Structure formats: structure tokens, C-alpha cells
């Protein structure tokens, strides 16, 4: 089903935000809409967005490539994006990330064998006083988890695995 069929209300709201002669502005919010459900932008969604906004598919692809929160292929359902930037690292983020790798049995950039969690290391998320912290990007949006411990993180991973299985 096309985006416009699936989310008619949202698409209309998005387009209304920008002057009609600059509807290209809607490309970023439409890409977020396209990522709902699957967690990445499919080829057909790319084509549809390009047509709707009178831009080329190459232009849409180059936007996806430029911004780190857009994805063009399927990975773990939940992207656990741990901040290991300077202020967090001064408060133990590197150690937290290393221990997390050990507990999950994967390296940064890899996905757990069941396809639930992809572990990533990211730049500052504007929560530097609450390290260690990470965000979880899922098909439903982004959620912050702050002042975390390994134990609480592993509990969360278990919960995600359960909800992932139910969702299937």
C-alpha cells in the first residue's frame, strides 16, 4: 500500500506545513513516515515520495544517505544507539558500551542473531549529565534511556525481545 493510502491524514498535515511551491520541504517528514512499520525506507516508498514532491529518486536517496537517522535497509528492529561522545565518555560511557557488547555477544555495528537489537555508537544526544545513556530508534520513533546500568539495559533488551516476538 502506498504512503498516501496508508497515512492520508499525516501526509496532508505534513504538506500543509510548507508553502505549496516549496513542497520539497516535506521530504524529511515523509521519509520518517515511510520508516514506520519496517524501520527503513523501501524502494517503492522512495519512488512514491520523489513523484509526490517532483524531485528525482536520486535526490531522495541522497537525503537518506546524508542523514544518519534514515535507513535504506533492514537491520535489527531496535537500534540501540549508545552515546560514547566526549562528555559521556568522561563519565564511563566507553566502559558501559564495552560491557554491553560482552553481554549482548555482539560488536558495535552488529545485530543480535534473533534480529532484535542493532548496537551502535553515536555522537552526543544532549543528555550529557545523564550518562551512561542511549536512545532506541524503532519503527515507532525514538526513545531516550538515561542514567542506565548494564542490568537495567539487559532487562530492557529482554522486554524488547518479547515484544518483538509478539509483534510478529
Amino acid at each position, binding site marked *: 500500500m502506498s504512503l498516501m493510502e496508508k497515512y492520508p491524514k499525516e501526509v496532508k498535515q505534513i504538506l500543509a*506545513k510548507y*508553502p505549496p511551491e*516549496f513542497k*520539497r*520541504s*516535506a*521530504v*524529511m*517528514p515523509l*521519509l*520518517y513516515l515511510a520508516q514506520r512499520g519496517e524501520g527503513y525506507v523501501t524502494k517503492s516508498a522512495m519512488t512514491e515520495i520523489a513523484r509526490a*514532491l517532483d*524531485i528525482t529518486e536520486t535526490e531522495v536517496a*541522497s*537525503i537518506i544517505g*546524508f*542523514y*544518519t*537517522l*534514515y535507513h535504506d535497509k533492514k537491520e535489527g528492529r531496535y537500534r540501540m544507539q549508545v552515546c560514547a*561522545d*566526549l*562528555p559521556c*565518555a*568522561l*563519565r564511563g560511557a566507553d566502559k558501559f558500551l564495552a560491557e554491553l557488547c560482552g553481554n549482548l555477544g555482539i560488536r558495535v555495528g552488529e545485530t543480535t542473531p534473533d534480529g532484535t537489537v542493532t548496537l551502535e555508537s*553515536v*555522537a*552526543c*544526544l*544532549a*543528555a*550529557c*549529565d545523564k550518562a551512561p545513556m542511549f*536512545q532506541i530508534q524503532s519503527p515507532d*520513533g*525514538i*526513545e*531516550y534511556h538515561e542514567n542506565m546500568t548494564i542490568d537495567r539495559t539487559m532487562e530492557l533488551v529482554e522486554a524488547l525481545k518479547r515484544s518483538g516476538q509478539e509483534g510478529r
Partner: protein
Amino acid sequence: MAHILLRHRDIPNLNVFEVYKKNGGFEAFKNAVKTMKPEDVINAVKNSGLRGRGGAGFPTGMKWSFMDNKSWPHYVVANADESEPGTFKDREIMEQNPFQFLEGVALGSYAVGAHAAYIYLRGEFWQVAAFLDERIAEMEKAGLLGDKLFGTEYSLRIHTHLGAGAYICGEETALLESIEGKRGQPRVRPPFPPAVGLFGKPTVINNVETFANVPMILANGADWYKSIGTADSAGVKIFSLSGRVKKPGNYELPFGKTFRDLIYGEGGGILEDRPIKAIMPAGASSSFIVADDKALDTVLDYASVRTLGADLGSASVIVIDDTVSVEWVVNKTLHFFKHESCGKCTPCREGTYWMLNVIKRIEHNRQAEDVSMLYDVAKQMQGKCLCALGEFATMAVTTGIERFPADFGR
């Protein structure tokens, strides 16, 4: 002193519409639209001495007066990209005191005759954007945003626009490109946004914290605001304090306190009471300050921090103690800038790539030639990049090697 920006710390539930309203909320905007000319609002902000809180400290009222009145429509953009490592103040404002920020955006829009304003949030602030959308809807419902406000001809709509993970989109012209649905790469200037900005039209861009000041200035008067702070820097500033301190967090202080007040007073001192070593006052883009007594007793305002060979920037104060090597800090910042360089201009694209390569070599096997090469690459980049990111990437490198030579084996 009661808070001026972080007022939610004094008034519980200030992010609830009724509570904000009961505490004098929206009066400044209503009063301005009904009784003041736009120029009067600009003059009040000018006379208050308010300077932009996004990094450069440019006088806000003056920026507003630069808008080209021969070209219409006008736009207002709030910069809520907040991606400088160490900065986390705008998020607290938007989550806890959102209406004061939105009222500031509305006042700014009225002042420059804009009928549409955009709030550009970093993509990670997905929940914050949804929260703001609800607050905006509440204001529309109460007749504070929309058509013909308060029985006048003035109309205003505020929209949120989410970025998608790119530090460079905090740079104001890259931000405009991003709202226009393009890759976030800086524009060549001039023209500057007050002449040619969003959709090719005159545009004012200010930081979230800058806007949050405006309702208080209009409500209490420019003289009141100017009486707070120092002659160089009027008013209050939110300092995001992070790193090796006991109590990291946001602290709102009038300009004129010292680094010692901030780090040892508010921040409770250094973890495990260890000796302080260095301060980065403006996040990862900072120069290093050697944290000796002279520095700790330096007054926090734009001009005074400059006497230490650094900029106050967005006041994201990262504290480094004696357990940390400056070489390691530089390594962290270079990973960041290599990743965030947008690639549009060669000195920055190539320079960040080389600096990261060299610091990685130094990490594994420190050679004097490599330290010299790192320093030279940084020096060669300075003054040659299209936007300030390229310059930012060199600051920790050059000042780190100059001011902490022992950490590089010199």
C-alpha cells in the same frame, strides 16, 4: 535569585498551559500585538542587551533590525538542533518551560512581521517535537496562534520540523537547506539570512534559549534585563556543566559569576576531589583552558572568557581532571568532527580525515613527527573553511598541543 529561564524549577508544572497562563504567561505577546508597533518590540530587545545564546553571541535586537523590509514574506526559525557535545539546555527549556520559548518565538515573529515560524529540532528530539506540537495546538485552541489574533490583522502559525541526525544542521544556513528538503550543507555567504533566508526570503534565526528570554524582557522591561549580568554580557545564561564534576547539569547564572562558582559551587567540585586540569567552555568546539587559579577566578561573560584564549560559545562547560589525557580528549573530538564534516569544502573534508588518521597513529605509537603533522594540518585548515565547523575541528588540536604539550610527549 529566582530563575528567569529555568522558571519551572521555581514553579511546578509550568509546562501545563493553565499554569503558565496563571503565572503571567502570554501577556507579553498579547500586549505586544495589541498595543505595540513591531519596531518597539525590536527596540526593547535591542535595549535589553540580549545576545544570541547559540554560540556566537550576536546582539539579537540588531539581528532583527537587519531584516530586509523590501522583500516579503518574512520567516522566523528557532534553532533547536542542540548537537554540540556537552550542550543540553534547549531540551530542558522545551520540555519543562515550553510556553515561554513558544511565546518568545511568537514575539520574535511579530517583531519582524513573520506569519510563519519553524522550529528546527534535531531528529533525536522526536519526543520533544511531539510534545511541542501538542503545546502549539493548545495555543491555537486558546486563540494565541492562528488568524487575526486578539482582534487584529496579525496572523501567526508555528510549525516543527525534525532533522535526522547531522550536527552541521545546527549551522544556520545548513539548517535552512534542511528545512527546504535538501542535504544540510552550508550556503556561501553573503547573502545573509536576514536578506535571503528560508525559501529565498528574509529570515531571522535564533537559538531556543535566546527566544526564551524575550517574554521576560517584554514583561519586565529592557532596563531590568540589562541590570542583570555584566556590562559586556547582559542577563542570565544557562550553563550545561558536564564531565568530571560531582553534579553535572544545567545551571542558570547571571553573567559575572566565575568558573569557580560554577564548577565548585553549583557543580560540587571534581569527582573524588581530584585536581581539575582543563576546561572546555564551549563543548567539543572549544579551545582548552588551563584550569589554574587565574582561569577559575575569571568572570563568565563573552569578553572575559576571550582573555583566556577561548570562546564561551553556547556555554557547554566540559570539565577535565588529572585522570584524563588531553590527547585522548582530542582523539574523541576528532572522531566527532570527521564524522560530522559535511564534505562540501576540501580543507574541512580532507583536514578532518587526516587529523583523525594521525591522532589514531599517535594513540598507538606516539611519534614527535606525527604530533607536529597533526598541529600543522590543523593550522593549515584555519581560516580556509567554508563554515565554522572546519574551524571548530581545529581548536582542541592546536590549543591542546600548545597548552598541554606534556600530554603529547613534548
